[in-house]
């Protein structure tokens, strides 16, 4: 087994026992990136030199006998909407194409302190707005299970990097499903933590009351290791939760007795691939066979939730993106007056989806419409939270799909924004409620594409999610799932971009 095929937990063990050096580990991933990324385009910026330098430092410190963090020397990829000091952070937008932050996001500082080499910054939908990574201003990322299809979004790059062994771990961000939906489309594990569990300081804001940084990994244990590092109170983030961080690895051993699981009946059923429903049902049966009590739970407000989300998120985004005016940083268009400069900079610098959302958000907040749109949506959000509180009185865990369909084709939904928005139908209400949610592989579609399950728990119950994720891993014959990447042999097949 090659180093790049190993999990972070396994690499950590070998690094700590000095069977292997961090430099060797990093080199293995760098070679893998060289091999695979020209076709899949998961990375916007690759940083091989920095990664090797970091690896070398860790190796020296380990040789000197220093006690290091368990993840020291294990490399990681970082979504390009998370600020990295002196390393360009583009958010996949022309407007930040050459923006170089003078500070690290809190989570990045944690990665560096632990000694994790950063392999590069991964591709995303521009400003995290999208469900396919096709909205990147630079290039789309391709699904490794079928390069003619999308990897999902917005954290497409991070997910593909982990799915193909270009990185053992990655950081993503999730606002309305941006970690969970792509994780499900690519066969990896993606965690959206409780709102406030992981610091947002340094995460370029899309929708402030919904954004969270989360983990992308191939196993629940790896997710737990990474959560141990990045979760916790940050005095720089006023919405950060002060509760102590548990050891997320604890409780990963099996044992589902007494677990009450609610199988979600969504408010609407159309748009769901029947094999997805089947996979979720099978998962429910598996849980039942192993001692869990499974019942049904309805979340009747799901499609109202979609509507509310598509008012709340763009509204907050329209405000968060006001700062991109060409004055202090970023792309700046010519203009003989300040107004012309503002409008041209933003008109030319932002992509179509971003502009659409800014328009919706501006409208929903504007005088005369605020009450009917934004305020109303906030009230609907309260109703949805109540639905969850009711559900969690009867159940400890909610089980559903992480995406209504497997991966769709590139270009299939780009002309119809509403169709694209429906990709998030399973994920959005969790975000609105602020509860933690985990996507784990749930089998395969008959086409060979992965399907994903979504597990949702009460606030601060990430441990339970990871434990259940681990359970499902153990039911599989083969784990982690690895795409064959057959297309790499067909280089003449026109997959190069």
């Amino acid at each position, binding site marked *: 087994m090659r180093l790049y095929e190993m999990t972070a937990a396994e690499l950590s063990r070998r690094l700590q026992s000095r069977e292997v050096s961090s430099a060797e580990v990093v080199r293995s991933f760098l070679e893998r990136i060289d091999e695979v990324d020209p076709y899949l385009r998961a990375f916007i910026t690759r940083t091989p030199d920095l990664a090797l330098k970091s690896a070398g430092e860790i190796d020296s410190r380990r040789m000197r006998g220093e006690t290091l963090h368990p993840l020291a020397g294990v490399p990681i990829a970082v979504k390009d909407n998370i600020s990295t000091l002196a390393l360009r952070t583009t958010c996949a937008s022309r407007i930040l194409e050459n923006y170089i932050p003078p500070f690290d996001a809190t989570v990045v500082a944690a990665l560096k302190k632990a000694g994790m080499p950063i392999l590069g910054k991964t591709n995303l939908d521009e400003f995290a707005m999208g469900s396919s990574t096709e909205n990147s201003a630079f290039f789309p990322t391709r699904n490794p299970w079928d390069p003619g299809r999308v990897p999902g979004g917005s954290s497409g790059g991070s997910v593909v990097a982990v799915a193909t062994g270009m990185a053992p771990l990655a950081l993503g961000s999730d606002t309305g499903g941006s970690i969970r939906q792509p994780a499900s489309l690519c066969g990896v594990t993606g965690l959206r933590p409780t709102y406030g569990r992981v610091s947002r300081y340094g995460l370029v804001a899309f929708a402030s*009351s919904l954004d969270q940084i989360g983990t992308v990994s191939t196993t629940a244990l790896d997710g737990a290791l990474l959560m141990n590092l990045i979760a916790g109170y940050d005095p720089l983030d006023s919405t950060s939760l002060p509760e102590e961080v548990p050891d997320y690895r604890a409780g990963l051993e099996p044992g589902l007795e007494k677990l009450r699981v609610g199988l979600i009946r969504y408010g609407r059923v159309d748009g769901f691939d029947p094999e997805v429903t089947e996979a979720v049902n099978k998962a429910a049966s598996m849980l039942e066979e192993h001692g869990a009590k499974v019942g049904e739970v309805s979340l009747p407000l799901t499609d109202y939730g979609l509507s509310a989300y598509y008012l709340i998120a763009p509204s907050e985004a329209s405000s968060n993106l006001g700062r991109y005016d060409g004055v202090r940083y970023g792309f700046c268009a010519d203009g003989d*007056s300040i107004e012309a400069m503002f*409008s041209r900079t933003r008109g030319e610098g932002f992509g179509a989806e971003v502009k659409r959302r800014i328009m919706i958000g501006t*409208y929903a907040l504007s005088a005369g419409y605020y009450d009917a749109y934004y305020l*109303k949506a906030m009230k609907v959000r309260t109703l949805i939270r109540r639905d969850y509180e009711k559900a969690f009185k009867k159940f400890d865990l909610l089980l559903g799909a992480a995406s209504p369909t497997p991966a769709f084709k590139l270009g299939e939904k780009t002309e119809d924004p*509403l169709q694209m928005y429906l990709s998030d139908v399973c994920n959005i209400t969790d975000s609105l409620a602020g509860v933690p949610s985990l996507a784990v592989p749930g089998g395969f579609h008959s086409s060979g594409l992965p399907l994903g399950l979504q597990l949702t728990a009460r606030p601060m119950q990430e441990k339970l999610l990871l434990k259940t994720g681990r359970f499902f891993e153990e039911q599989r014959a083969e784990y982690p799932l690895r795409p064959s990447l057959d297309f790499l042999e067909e280089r003449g097949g026109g997959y190069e971009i």
Partner: protein
Amino acid sequence: MPFDFGKEVDHVARLARLSLEEDEKERMAGQLSDILKTARRIQELDTTGIEPTSHVTERPAVLREDRVRPSLPLDKALRNAPRREKGFVKVPRITVSEQDQK
């Protein structure tokens, strides 16, 4: 009665400082009409007496001590600024009517 965003496009684009080409405007008007039509479904729900959620975190604000911390050195603060002069950020002329809106 179909919802027509076309009339609103110019006003909203101006509020948002987004310059749009004519064909962009047209396309957007249609797309936004559709999206908003769907979004308006929330009007169907009865929310009488429901408090809006502006924060899912139900706690009071965090307060920090009034202590001065080092600022960014000038070159770091302005590193990404497209136009600079003598330590200031430089911008094109501002008309009086623009100042008026403050």
